[in-house]
């Protein structure tokens, strides 16, 4: 029996902890590899073999799979969620088989499933896997995700004010490289603290009361910079502090994203769960508005049903709190110029408002 080479789709910088976890669980003789970084070719491949009307994260995932299968992967992992994403795994597996690839495909239900389901799936790949070992590996991967989220939060808040263009992005690459070398919780903590200090030491020129914008919306588009034309960094270029709640650590381990918690605070704006991340989009928009933010950016894949549900409510919040909201729907053909035009106008609008106060 040949070695199992496990892979997964990209999302943001999380390939570091995901690869670590899968590598640890894979067992002797097997290994995990990352797909090549997302490029236009990934999207072209994914689009070519996907149903036309499926939401865009599906196409990115499929592109990742095809590219990594070409690199030798033979076991693929997918998660499923509470919207169309629930069907991603089955459909992608079928498409890949129809294309003639030989593979094992595991879908893990992130919405309803438990850590036990995850363990069972890996027990299948690696029969010698023990529970205690899995928990230890999972702890390291989790700590890595927290480290990434912590560093990225610092980047979002400060990159717009860097004195030397590109200094934050260079440091981010070094950080991810160092993080990928870590093998236990202590090392991850060390890398995190070391790089947080390094980031804090980068020269910035930040006003005491900077303009602040929050990003809400659908999970994949919000977290994968390639799919949103690096919108956070583009926004920051206008001298803004960017806030985003939706991260892996928030989504997996914070109870604050659960419908019960969010609905407690949304009052008359929302009375019941509207699915996937949409309930959160409303809740967080309300939080941002109440906190006196200067604007909100709402991101979604074209045709994302849960987020379409959230939009009229977010619009209502926008009117009640007089906070401007800019909506983007991404698909495979949106032009970068169009995004930049709208962002620039949005930044101008905020500048005019701040100047008049």
């Amino acid at each position, binding site marked *: 029996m040949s070695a199992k080479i496990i892979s997964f789709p990209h999302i943001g910088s999380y390939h570091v902890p995901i690869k670590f976890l899968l590598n640890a669980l894979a067992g002797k003789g097997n290994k995990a590899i990352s797909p*090549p970084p997302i*490029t*236009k*070719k*990934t999207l072209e491949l994914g689009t070519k073999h996907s149903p036309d009307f499926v939401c865009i994260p599906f196409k990115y995932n499929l592109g990742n799979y095809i590219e990594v299968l070409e690199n030798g992967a033979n076991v693929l992992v997918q998660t499923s969620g509470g919207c169309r994403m629930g069907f991603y795994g089955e459909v992608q597996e079928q498409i890949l088989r129809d294309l003639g690839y030989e593979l094992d495909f595991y879908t893990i239900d992130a919405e309803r499933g438990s850590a036990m389901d995850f363990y069972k799936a890996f027990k299948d790949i690696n029969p010698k896997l023990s529970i205690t070992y899995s928990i230890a590996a999972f702890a390291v991967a989790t700590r890595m995700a927290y480290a990434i989220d912590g560093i990225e939060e610092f980047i979002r808040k400060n990159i717009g004010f860097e004195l030397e263009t*590109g200094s934050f992005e260079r440091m981010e690459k070094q950080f991810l490289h160092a993080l990928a070398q870590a093998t236990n919780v202590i090392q991850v903590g060390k890398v995190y603290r070391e790089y947080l200090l390094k980031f804090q030491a980068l020269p910035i020129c930040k006003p005491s009361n900077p303009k602040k914008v929050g990003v809400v919306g659908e999970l994949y588009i919000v977290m994968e910079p390639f799919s949103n034309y690096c919108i956070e960094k583009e926004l920051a270029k206008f001298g803004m502090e960017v806030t985003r709640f939706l991260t892996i650590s928030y989504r997996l381990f914070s109870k604050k994203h659960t419908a019960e918690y969010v609905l407690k605070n949304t009052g008359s704006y929302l009375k019941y769960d509207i699915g996937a991340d949409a309930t959160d989009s409303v809740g967080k928009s309300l939080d941002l508005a109440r906190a006196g933010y200067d604007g909100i950016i709402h991101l979604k894949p*074209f045709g994302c049903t849960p987020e379409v549900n959230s*939009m*009229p409510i977010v*619009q209502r919040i*926008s*009117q009640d709190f*007089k906070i*401007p*909201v800019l*909506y*983007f*729907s991404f*698909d495979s*053909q*949106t032009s970068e*110029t*169009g995004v*930049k*035009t*709208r962002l*620039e*106008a949005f930044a*101008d*609008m905020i500048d*005019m*408002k701040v100047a*008049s106060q």
Partner: protein
Amino acid sequence: MKAYLGVDIGSISTKGVVVDDKAQILAHEYLWTEGNPIHAVKRVIDALQKQIDGKDIQVKAVGTTGSARKLIGVVLGAQTVKNEITAHAIGTMSRVPDVRTIFEIGGQDSKIIILEDGIVTDYAMNTLCAAGTGSFLMSQAKRLGLAIEELGEMALKSQNPTRIAARCTVFAESDLVHKAQIGHKKEDIVAGICNAVVSNYLNNVGKGKRIAAPIVFQGGVSKNVGVVRAFEQVTGSDVYVDEFGHLMGALGVAVLAKQSGKEQNFDFNIQHVEFITKGTECKKCANNCEIIHVYRGEDVLDSWGNRCERGVSA
């Protein structure tokens, strides 16, 4: 006298104005872009020069806006390069200071801008789809054997506008063909098209926006009185169309160029200089960024299109 030049290079038309320091228009020009923005701008500059020739006018700053703003900004050495949303808001406010809502329908795009106390508070622009814009009206005018300029007057004659599906231009077109074939009058169909444009606009770009008077309507489609009437009927308030409505972007960016405080005498003899653009594909990774180089004669003025620093040297 100090003056400022604003140029708005859209997909369909190119507009230019020269204004004084009180934003009064001294010279203006409007012509078709015809897929060649550099050539169109040269013609605009030429026409503007003829209009101010012999007067004591010195252009001190240049601003560009519209979809070719970056390219033309480099060609003209502009002090200000601004997106068309901000430019339109600034331009309109210089003509109608208390404006609350701006409807703008151009050749390929449409937008809505909401203002309060002279500040933009909200805006939206069409995405993915150019339904209900000038190019749709143009193709339907052609289908009906009419000139685009005739549509408005003809729509006003209609007593009983035909209902035409407005959601999507593909559906609208097949609906229109069907209605014509079963015997609807031409003026009713034309009025129906005007209503369809308005309902499409308000249901897409205008969705969820608080539309308050005074309303200003501009962009090429504002020249169509049929669409103006349809807007008035739906919103229930007067819709003001400025005589310079088609020049608001150019006017706004001229004002912004003045406000930039940067001054450099502008040389109108630009039409004799040769500008060349060359597109190359960076082969250094699978992104294959399309990089554009702009040359003035032999010299590279600027390059753009690369996603990372590797493309800079390409």
